[in-house]
């Protein structure tokens, strides 16, 4: 599947980018996270108390180890040592390589890592992808018998598959920016002529225009902190002179600040949106971030909007949640062509969940019973969305 030139593991986000104070995408450490998951899930020999197929496997330039030719279906547990001078990614696949059942994203030269899972009856191979581009496949391992708790296999995702969604997503963002600029200018004009009632009306649409782009926060770099930062993390909290953006304006509008005091903030907002728009063509979207966003926009929304924590006086956090749902729906929409062939039920569940939360948010403002339903439905949707990043982790050459 394409040229195998996997990048050596990078487990930290770009240190140049200071994460904005409230919206913090987890570091793009899919690699590391998956290793931990595999370790935690391992039903290794020490756990099950009886022998399971597995043992030590050495991989090198000559081959991807020698798993046992046959064995019982059920838990398998290998310890894989990289005897090559390069990093190696190891996948447990079906013989055709169409489905991946377990993986070690990276082993360093001379390193050893566990490869454990539970497999149904069938034929499997180990597939090694070395960082010098070499790919080696072991002879097949045939498992027979019945078992419970066998994992499902998933079609691997090549790196390049994410190109089209990222392109589509960028186009959507780009098209949305003029409206954001318009909203910011309207808000600034209200404040300029001292009409704070109009400003309070125009604040929300402008803020929602921004929040709808929620997925974009990392690609907006430091602009997000300037445009939508909360008072958290600022030494002076809501009185901090460096606090700017929608929430700073919100706080002022709903706490009796004068137009004169607010004008510098709205002017700055217009300016920051203009700079963001100018800068946007050069901002990159890491392809691996897109599936994370599908999940984490709404994690943030639960944490800050559903709870009301990000309310600075306007009482509109549920509207913000709605905008975040729209933003998530857009990300899901551009990823749908990749999700559908791998897990159609997941895509259906996500779409159903998005529709349900959208319905829960429709006016009138929810009473206690509807509110509890919203809490439950958002939580349930997040359980589904949490599968997207791992499902769409790049497994080039797997």
């Amino acid at each position, binding site marked *: 599947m394409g040229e195998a030139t996997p990048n050596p593991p990078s487990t930290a986000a770009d240190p140049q980018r200071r994460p904005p104070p409230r919206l913090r995408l987890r570091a793009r450490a899919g690699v590391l996270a998956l290793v931990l998951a595999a370790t935690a*899930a*391992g039903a290794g020999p020490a756990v099950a108390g009886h022998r399971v197929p597995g043992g030590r496997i050495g991989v090198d330039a000559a081959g991807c180890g020698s798993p046992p030719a046959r064995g019982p279906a059920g838990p398998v547990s290998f310890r894989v040592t990289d005897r090559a001078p390069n990093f190696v990614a190891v996948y447990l696949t079906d013989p055709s390589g169409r489905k991946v059942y377990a993986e070690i994203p990276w082993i360093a030269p001379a390193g050893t890592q566990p490869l454990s*899972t539970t497999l149904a009856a069938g034929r499997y191979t180990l597939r090694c992808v070395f960082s010098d581009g070499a790919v080696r496949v072991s002879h097949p391992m045939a498992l027979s018998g019945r078992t419970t708790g066998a994992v499902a296999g998933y079609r691997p995702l090549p790196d390049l598959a994410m190109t089209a969604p990222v392109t589509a997503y960028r186009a959507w963002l780009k098209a949305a920016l003029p409206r954001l600029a318009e909203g910011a200018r309207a808000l600034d004009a209200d404040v300029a002529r001292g009409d704070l009632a109009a400003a309070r009306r125009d604040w929300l649409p402008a803020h929602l225009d921004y929040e709808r782009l929620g997925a974009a926060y990392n690609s907006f770099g430091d602009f997000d902190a300037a445009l939508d930062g909360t008072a958290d993390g600022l030494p002076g909290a809501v009185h901090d002179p460096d606090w700017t953006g929608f929430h700073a304006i919100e706080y002022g509008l709903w706490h009796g600040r004068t137009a004169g005091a607010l004008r510098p903030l709205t002017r700055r907002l217009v300016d920051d949106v203009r700079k963001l728009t100018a800068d946007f063509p050069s901002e990159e979207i890491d392809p691996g971030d897109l599936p994370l966003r599908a999940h984490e926009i709404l994690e943030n929304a639960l944490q800050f909007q559903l709870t009301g924590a990000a309310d600075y006086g306007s009482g509109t956090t549920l509207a913000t949640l709605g905008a975040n749902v729209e933003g998530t729906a857009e990300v899901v929409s551009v990823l749908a062509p990749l999700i559908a062939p791998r897990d159609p*039920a997941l895509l259906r569940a996500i779409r159903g969940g998005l529709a349900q939360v959208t319905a829960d948010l429709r006016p009138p403002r929810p009473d206690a019973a509807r509110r509890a339903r919203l809490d*439950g439905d958002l939580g349930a949707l997040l359980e589904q969305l949490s599968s997207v990043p791992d499902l769409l982790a790049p497994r080039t050459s797997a």
Partner: protein
Amino acid sequence: MNPGPLGRRGFLRGATVGAAGAAAFGGFRLADAAGQDGSASGRVVPFEGVHQAGIVTPQQAAATFVSFQVVAPDREALRELFGTLTERVRLLTSGGPVPATDVASVPTDSGTLGPALPPDGLTVTVGVGASLFDDRYGLAARRPARLTKMPVFPDDHLAGSTEVHGDLSLQICADSRDTVMHALRDITRHTRAAIRPLWKADGFHAEPRPAGTARNQLGFMDGTGNPDVARPDVADALVWTRGGAGGEPAWTEGGSYQVVRIIRMLVEFWDRVSLREQETMIGRRRDSGAPLDGARESDTPDYPADPQGHVIPLDAHIRLANPRDRATADQRMLRRGYNYDRGLDAVGDLDVGLIFCCYQQDVARQFRAVQDRLAGEPLVDYIQPTGGGYFFALPGVRGASDRLGSGLLA
């Protein structure tokens, strides 16, 4: 609709969006539990039975009581909820290796108990509140005859409380605290679209000091007069509801009314009260647990010999609660409370007390009657009921194909 074999993600998905019937979940079992080797954490309390576990089960060390609002959109979703609860509780109480995680999923388990779940004496007892029988699920005709919203009693401090009532209750008990929390996280994760937690209270069961019944945070043994529910005839007479009797719907057979009361104890005040006064309020010696007219905890107070209440005052807690006469014998209930400790109040006093929990055949005949008799007792100055609810603990799961609530939803 079903795209093939259900993995564990399929399980989660089915549970949350109703894409798959609960029967499909049956194939997924934990087995070969590490820890089932006689070590303490390998203790298994059987899940299946005519009655739910966690009622006449001897008290484990740790408990949490959680009340939920059911948000399942319809009766079919409610049915799926009970199917999911049944499967999760069955798995959690059996213990065993955590299932492998496939490459496309987040971990199947929180991992807080390590790679193999210890059974650890875990019980999860599921109850339903009166509000579940409103017009949402068409269950009005199935309401247990004595199940009402918990009334406000004269000495209650429930005004403004956010910890009252609920559609569904879970009592989760285990030999260790982390096992209780692990079970709760697992259950909520699998049921988010169906139940939304409303309030939660964590409790601990003290060791006997030095022997006998465990003490509450007033320093007194609490539960001495409990009926001997190890005797089936006693449990049948006092704990288990009889379907068809006294207007009870047939499905209630083998269930039990559960009352949960969060009772704060003003321990700073209490500690400033003389021992003599404490003991006359309770009616027992603090050190030995003996009634004031006796020598040992197990001694039965002789009220006919003290009709004026010179030794054990007429308004002593134990005398009001259980007059030890024929007329009130069927009012006895099974108390199964836990001490709680949750920080400080606004003035720096301890927010500690008792999660009172009791089970009975008939909440009106038992808890209600006793509570009415206790109204205004001297002890009320030192305790403040601040939350809780009435629930009906469902009958047990009677086999591999049965599920919680099967009678309720039949």
